[in-house]
């Protein structure tokens, strides 16, 4: 496997923040990995994801994706980078309310200037939601909306799929379905970086779980079997909590 994401001594301090959201984080993610980043609220896990997506810039250190140093890209370059390399799945789906499901899925391709209706329909079919292609988000269930969001994230065949608490706004059953879907995508070769606070969910699907606490990586576990992984991660989290 080859390197896809490299964070080197990344620090992120928000304006007015006394402590950094990220403090000297270094990280390497390889192609094909399903990596979960875990941590409590305010630990810096979403900040880490935003930096990898090029949505935010580090205060210091560097972020490289696919060998591309994001610090060297301007706003337009970052937009092109996201369009070409990143698929983003949000906790609250963030579908555009005035576009149909199909139109939402098509947006990233159209921003790129390509026409991908056939692929969008294929993706909707793969995700089991082909029958809601012409419906607006307001008429979809949470699970359906998140599947549309995943299809949208995949439309440009990104090298990296970022998912920020993708099950956070869903019930357990629907959340499981979404995670199954992400697992299947990974098995098909998609690199996934998942942010979640749910250890069981993470360990059930991810092969690697990185724990973040107070802006630092406190644990980086490569899991061989789901059962062992879960106990290891839970141990790490209880240690963090007791500190």
């Amino acid at each position, binding site marked *: 496997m080859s390197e896809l994401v490299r964070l080197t001594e990344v620090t992120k301090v928000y304006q007015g923040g006394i402590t950094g959201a990220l403090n000297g984080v270094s990280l390497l993610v390889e192609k094909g990995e399903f990596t979960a980043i875990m941590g409590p609220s305010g630990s810096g896990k979403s900040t880490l994801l935003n930096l990898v997506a090029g949505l935010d810039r580090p205060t210091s250190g560097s972020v490289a994706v696919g060998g591309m140093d994001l610090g060297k890209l301007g706003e337009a370059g970052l937009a092109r980078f996201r369009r070409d390399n990143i698929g983003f799945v949000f906790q609250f789906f963030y579908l*555009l309310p005035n576009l149909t499901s199909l139109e939402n899925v098509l947006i990233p391709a159209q921003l790129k200037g390509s026409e991908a209706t056939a692929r969008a329909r294929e993706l909707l079919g793969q995700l089991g939601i082909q029958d809601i292609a012409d419906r607006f988000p307001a008429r979809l269930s949470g699970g359906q909306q998140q599947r549309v969001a995943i299809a949208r994230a995949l439309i440009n065949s990104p090298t990296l799929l970022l998912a920020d608490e993708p099950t956070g706004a869903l019930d357990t059953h629907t959340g499981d379905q979404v995670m199954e879907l992400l697992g299947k995508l990974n098995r098909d070769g998609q690199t996934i970086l998942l942010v979640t606070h749910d250890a069981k969910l993470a360990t059930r699907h991810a092969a690697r779980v990185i724990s973040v606490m107070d802006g630092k990586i406190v644990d980086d576990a490569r899991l061989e079997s789901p059962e062992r992984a879960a106990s290891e991660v839970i141990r790490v989290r209880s240690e963090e909590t007791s500190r």
Partner: protein
Amino acid sequence: MRAIFIKALADLRRRRLQATVIFLTVLFAMAAGTTAVTLMSQTRDPYQVAFEKQRGAHLQVAFRPNTDPQLIKGTAATIGASAYGGPYPASNIQFRFGNRKFYVDAVGRDNPGGAVEVLNITSGRWPVANDEIVLTRSFSELNKISIGDLLKVTSVAQTPTLTVVGEVVDIDEGSADLSSQRAWMLPAALPALSTPDSSFYLMDYRFPSDPTGPQLQTSLGLLKTSLPPGSVAGALTYLLIGSIFNITNQILTGVLVAFSVFALAATVAIVATLVTGIVISAYREIGIMRAVGFTPYQVVAVFALQIVMPALAACLVGVTAGTLASQPLLANSSHALGLAYTPTFSIGLDLLLFAGGILVVAVAATVPALRAGMLKPIVAITKASAPRGSGGRMLRHAAARLRLPRPVVLGIGDAFARPLRAALTLITVLLGVATVVVAVGLPRSFELINNSETGAGKYQVVVTRSSAYPDSDVMRVLNAQPETARVVASGGQNVIVPGVGDPVNTRLFRGDSSRLGYMVVAGRWYSAPGEVVAPAALMHDAHLKIGDSFTGTANGQPLQLRLVGETYDINNLGHSLFMDIATMASVTPAVEPFLYDVTLAPGSDVSAYVRRVAAVEPDLLDVRASDTSTIAPVKIIDLVLLILAGVLALIGVGGVFNTVLLNTRERIHDTATLKALGMSPRQVIVMVGASAGLLALVGGLVAMPLGLSLHHVLNDVISNSAGNETPPVAYAVFNAYELVLIPLLGVGVAIAAALIPGRWAARTNVVEVLHAE
């Protein structure tokens, strides 16, 4: 109450940009409205004041020189006049000043006072010798003649020289740029300056109260029947003179009122859009306000107050600015009437305008703010904002089918996402573009009409002969010049037309008058003796239509005439007749032309021609290059139109800016999502710009027919006020490419205005926006 003010003030500080938009639009609307209303309410006053002060004549009548002065004097009692002046001996004289020659009606009077037509001496003194003359101030200023200047009379063989000793204001004649003028001398000086065909008696009548037009016509009819036939040569009423004094301000007032209503309508649309936008984006805040104890009415008051506060300041400044802006025009009227200028305004009226402006804005703000008051607290607090508009789908699909870039497609959809807001914005664009259309079109229509009146491009030289220089000699001189291509000569004589009280001036042409550039509104130009053309006012008063035959009276003899066409002519406010001189010669064989419109061969040196012909007989020929310049009142109207168009266009741009700003802020979450998905800053700007561009395009396309209709209507109003109907060519002043270019220009300006919210959206931090959600 205090809490409402504190909250409204805090909101106002937060929404400074929107407050600025409100301030500017209300300011422009109020300034234009106040100018209009002040002009409208005050313009009649200076004339009325001067008319009373100078005991103006309600009716002035010119009598032929062979009429017995004692009989003329007796007519005052016949028609029930309470006071009279005259009969004064008068003569139309020509004099030379520098190398220019002028005609005035010299009136013989011992003094400037009397029971009627008191002359207000503004400088100098009344003549005390036969070689002294007093001019009107209007005439002196227009022609740059000063006290002490010498005028050489060229209409009589002796060519005596007169000294200007005074300037007066005469309330019984129009200003020099619109009317012929009088001058005054001692009665004893008149005989030496008179010729048989230039003399007349002038009599002024004043009635106990201001008579109406029909009453004046009745009096004139009585007067005519009491004298031998043909005694009356002409008549003038105070109503006509008042109209001439006020015509510029009347037209200006009409234009200003129309566009003030436009500006106010646009302001109402912007206020309603703004408040709706604020309420939509402040659901959570409304919920919190209700939660902490604001009543529904107090919530409404908070939203209305933050609009009313900048509007209050704008009304204050706007009413003051409008009152000040009206003063130069009023000062101009006062000056023309010989009145000392004192600032003319009504505090009561200004207060009324101020209150009216505030009321309109308050209502426009309160109606959409009611939505905030009616929101249930729990609904408001649980929703950050109102459900996002989902309109514009059809447009978006249509744009997608055209394979436009996705940011453009999205922007097009956003433009009509909230149909009511889009409609209100369209109103502001529509009014702005329509005004621009009018401001572009009307000056062109004016120019066309001006060109027809001045013969621009049709003839280059105008020669006027003194009665001492025969017509045949003039023609010989002109025909001897190698550059002379065509000469159309003209004269004039009054004709009595059945149904028209005043004798009607005629233009009697010799030569091909159809090539002088007069505009034919309907029918055709005359082509044979007995045929005449006339402007609308005469046709209306005489109940004539094209094709009608009628019998006029000229020189006391019946004159068979047939109306074959309607023309445009503002002289005498549309009361004149145009015919071949041969028509008049049938009853007045001695009639001769005195004015010669000369068309030169292409490439001729006009100045050299003028110098050469003038040198033939310097005292008896007035030779000058044709003056095709636009008269001052038209220039003022053009300028005011230009300013109004600028103001309305700015309000239109403000409307688009306001809507795009609201849309952009409201959709910033979607924009952040799009940015997260890979939309570049440039694409964000394109999206916002497309939204503004579409609104401007739709508004512009709808505005074009509206603007053209408005141009049509205003042309008619202005033409009618000058006694005419608009000639068809005056409507058709736009090129096809301009009809496309004007809305496109609007699109360009709207896109430029959208750059500010567009750049703001493009620079938005995605993480902050999505995190805030």
